[in-house]
């Protein structure tokens, strides 16, 4: 029983971290219409950035600044945002899909740096023995995990609240206007490039934040945690839940990560070890099918469907009837 409860805590921490990741992607795709094909890169940059900033000093490694965790977290997010700035600056004025190609490229590049730049990233072994925030104050690792879950939930809640506030503000209104008709938005005094850039950088920073939180949770980073499949998983989570809708995004994480975990467990029990790589392919095929089938048959996801239309109407109505709120 305790085992299950502990596993649940573990599961929920990962879900919460992925939910933050999905919210970052939702800002880019769901609200702004920017295709990021390299989600894992920004997540990894945040993770490695945090790890390098908080890690203990070791002679063979660059970094090891031993900064407090909170600073490390912010630093990781800032680095991810910076990476977002570079690809966005290169591509935002061009054909839309160039951003997709460039983000795909940065994902490959980050993976290579993680694997090969031993002095910075620890190479294939990764960076281990990273301090976990306030670990010493807890009697047992299990209690620590429970508290970490609470902390991560609080951070996810804060991200959710801040994002909701931003997308329901005049800023969010401009985002939607630009997504619907950039030319008309320009003629009304909005600078589409600047606003898209803001959304992309902010989204990338949030992904980086998720990466840093992951490091705080497991206490090490290694390239294994940042495989390309993660990008696809995050995308599946977003569109299953319904892009452009943060509640849906969170639901999507539960559904897809649940599916992934259950199928993974089943496979490890049933399939002989010699066929594990094929079994992994089966899992990936599920993710691919989820993406393609949702796009074809339910493009607005599970709960994005009707609310996109009615949400704004309702918001506007509430605002009018009750001018002091909102």
């Amino acid at each position, binding site marked *: 029983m305790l085992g299950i409860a502990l596993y649940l805590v573990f599961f929920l921490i990962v879900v919460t971290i992925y939910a933050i990741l999905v919210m970052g992607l939702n800002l880019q795709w769901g609200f702004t219409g920017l295709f990021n094909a390299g989600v894992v890169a920004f997540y990894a940059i945040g993770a490695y950035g945090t790890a390098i900033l908080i890690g203990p000093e070791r002679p063979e490694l660059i970094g090891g600044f031993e900064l407090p965790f909170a600073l490390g977290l912010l630093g990781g997010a800032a680095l991810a945002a910076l990476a977002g700035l570079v690809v966005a600056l290169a591509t935002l004025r061009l054909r839309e899909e160039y951003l997709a190609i460039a983000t795909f490229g940065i994902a490959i590049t980050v993976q290579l740096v993680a694997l090969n730049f031993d002095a910075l990233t620890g190479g294939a072994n990764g960076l281990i023995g990273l301090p976990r925030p306030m670990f010493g104050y807890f009697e047992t690792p299990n209690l620590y995990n429970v508290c970490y879950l609470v902390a991560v939930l609080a951070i996810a809640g804060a991200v959710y609240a801040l994002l909701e*506030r931003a997308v329901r503000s*005049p800023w969010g209104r401009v985002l939607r206007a630009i997504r619907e008709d950039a030319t008309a938005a320009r003629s009304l*005094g909005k600078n589409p490039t600047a606003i898209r850039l803001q959304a992309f950088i902010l989204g990338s920073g949030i992904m980086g934040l998720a990466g840093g939180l992951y490091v705080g949770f497991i206490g090490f980073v290694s390239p294994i945690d940042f495989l390309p499949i993660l990008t696809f998983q995050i995308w599946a989570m977003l569109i299953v839940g319904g892009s452009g809708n943060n509640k849906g995004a969170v639901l999507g994480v539960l559904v897809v990560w649940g599916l992934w975990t259950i199928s993974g467990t089943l496979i490890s029990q049933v399939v002989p070890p010699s066929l594990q790589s094929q079994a992994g392919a089966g899992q990936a095929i599920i993710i691919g099918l989820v993406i393609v089938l949702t796009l074809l048959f339910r493009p607005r996801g599970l709960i994005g469907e009707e609310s996109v239309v009615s949400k704004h109407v309702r918001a506007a109505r509430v605002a009018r009837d009750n*001018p002091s709120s909102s």
Partner: protein
Amino acid sequence: MTGTAPPILEVSDAVKAFGAMRAVDGASFAVAPGSITGLIGPNGAGKTTLFGAIAGENPLTSGRVTFDGHDITRLDAYDIYRLKLARTFQIPRPFPAMTVLENVMVAALDQAGEKFWNTWLRPGRVQRQERQVRERAHEVIAFCNLTGVEDNLAGAISGGQKKLLELARVLMSEPRLILLDEPAAGVNPALLDTLVEKIVEINARGTTFLIIEHNMDMVMSLCQAIVVLAQGRVIAAGTPDAVAADKAVLDAYLGEVAA
């Protein structure tokens, strides 16, 4: 008359070339402040191209555009709108999945909440301003006879209402000059009367208009000055009567009988 005041808009030697084709070929004219000026001419004369160039969508190949003392030749569309020069589109371009109210609110200038950090750091100011913007939007919506559809999605209102919405949006910036691109196109007579009435009313409050229009009744009755463009050049300019009496204008429209 306003003859002595310096022009609010001045276009000098404007050229817009697409490859070898010169859509605008050395056009020069001025718009007097407070006037309603018509810009007419046959198809392909370069009117809409010129509008796009003035409004900053596609900058001129050469020449100069001055608005209210600013050289706006190389400014981008959004900066020009911020200087209070607004334009509408010939085929309305509402944001279809946003409500009419949101469509209008989005057009307000200098909204603190358009910087996302302000929504976190200065929520009070953002909310206060949002209330003001909403009130102003309701006024504009009422002025444009759109009351009752403000909560409808802009994609779902009638074509005529979309025309009014085009006008309502740009009014949010309290523009000094509005470029109207064919306001009467595709509009029924009753709505046309409304549009004309609104234009006159806005003009009376001090906003200058430059209007591309093919409905000559409207142009002749509404405009105090008319600029005639043909093949990218200004071939006539003056009062409606003078322009209507100009043989060159009729020739430009109907062409001469080929030999």
